């Protein structure tokens, strides 16, 4: 396991903390823009901001991996996590929207 944890120069600490924070902040930005645009609270062109957020997040994740000197297995896990996160809001929104549509349909039928 010696390979797993390598010494990190203290000059990299600030970059690591900032990049870690950016990963989560842009991750929220992606989810927030995606949801708000899908709900038509913002113009659909703002979807570009959503995917731009995800792209910056993915780049930050890559840079974090470099700074932390992670080994190949963790590199793959990090990339897999980013792909998963790209899909995640789509699935959540799809499920929420389906439930809403079904409920609205049921309400209309009941009213008739």
């Amino acid at each position, binding site marked *: 396991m010696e390979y*797993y944890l390598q010494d*990190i*120069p203290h000059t990299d*600490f600030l970059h690591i903390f900032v990049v870690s924070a950016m990963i989560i902040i842009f991750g929220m930005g992606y*989810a927030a823009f995606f949801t708000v645009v899908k*709900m038509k609270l913002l113009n659909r062109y703002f979807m570009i901001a959503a995917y731009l957020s995800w792209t910056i997040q993915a780049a930050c994740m890559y840079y974090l991996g470099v700074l932390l000197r992670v080994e190949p297995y963790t590199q793959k896990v990090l990339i897999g996590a980013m792909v998963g996160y790209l899909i995640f*809001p789509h699935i959540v929104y799809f499920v*929420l929207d389906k*439930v*809403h549509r079904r409920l609205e349909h049921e309400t209309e039928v009941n009213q008739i």
Partner: protein
Amino acid sequence: MQGNRLYEGQKLALKYFTVAIVLFGAQLLFGLIAAIQYLYPSFLFNTLDFSIARMVHINALVVWLLYAMIGAVYWLLPDEAGVEVVGVKLGTLAFYILTAAVAVVVLVYIFVQVGPGNEMTLWLITEGREYIEAPRWADIGIVAVVLVFLYNVYATVLKGKHSGILVVLMADLIALAGLYLAGMFYTDNIAVDQYWWWWVVHLWVEATWEVYVAAVGGYILIKTLNANRQVVEMWLWIEVAMMFGSGILGLGHHYFWIGTPEYWWEIGALFSALEPVPLVGLFVHVLYDWGKERGKGNSIKNIPAFAWLTVETFGNFLGAGVWGFMHTLPQINLYTHGTQWPAAHGHLAFFGAYVAIMISAIYLAVQGKAGLKEMKMTKAGWWAISLITVGVLLMTVSLTLSAYTQTMVERGMHGATWEGYFIAQANKWFVQGMGWRLASGLAVVAGYALLVYDLLTVTKKQPAEVTEGEAAVQTA
């Protein structure tokens, strides 16, 4: 006041909320003392040492949150189940026993402080386990009280309606109560002892409490926004799956350096990285419900409760998500654990994830007690939420400044030596961070005073159109 419209269980909830708010004040007071001691180590030295002030500060937090959690369940239980709480008299007796026990434990903490380190200390003074220092007699008492609480919840739900929120809570409370047992036995090996102790601390905070918050948050969304119950409950199940999925093995990030096998590094890293995902999900969920209901022209039924719920969503995300992820991976945690990083993360995460939602639940109960259909925010309420939130955020940034100094100077430049520790403690950036932390703590205390004032007066300061035609919300 239309207290006569309340269920007996809800009246019991108000008792729990009252003690919770008092203990919240005690938490802040002892936090302030500890913050002063960081800057002036001779302050109350040999009278109330830092170790005691910190212990009471953290234990008061844990206990007041538990009080508020039990209170919130007693508040929503009859409302959701549609029947009075079964065993409410037993519950009231348990409340008085618990409160008397907490008072005795706190007095022993403050006036006896330490024992000779034998079995007597373990049973009567403190078990010495960080965050859950209660002596064993109190531990056993807590288990008895929680068993009464569990009985009341189960018996009530079985008698009444089984909503999704209640079913999730029933399962979660079993886990919450059961995990406490992992912190009650003693082993001679410190690594083994820590291994089990983290079950209580981590699996409570990052699994069962998170699920609890999701359930209570769902209830608050229904009450404040008229959010669709089926959507709320469906989302609740998704969150439960995600939180248990990432939270349980996220335990690994506490096993990096306590003598457990090295495979915990990879398990901890992977699942800790996943832990912010449910928080993002919670954020999307609240946003989604707010957007949907706003589109239908629905007004917010309780603005203070909804404002605190919003603080919860962002605070949980920032504190647990951003500040957690910044130092959770083992490669960087090697340099940050034991510094002020966990303190910065812990302050914002606990405030965001738990304190804010419990205050939200208390505002809901205040509205219900007064029988108001809608409740607006008062000036005192706005000042309270602003001072407390900005205060905690500033506190987190201040602690981060000190933490960064420690990581650079003590760990990076001086290799985690004693000499490095003292050099870092004397560094001007570390000291300035601690100074700002004290200033922000004072802002939080001022916010707390306004919060108490607002909770006592908010119903009397509602505009006429709100108070006219008032009806008990919980029975509507």
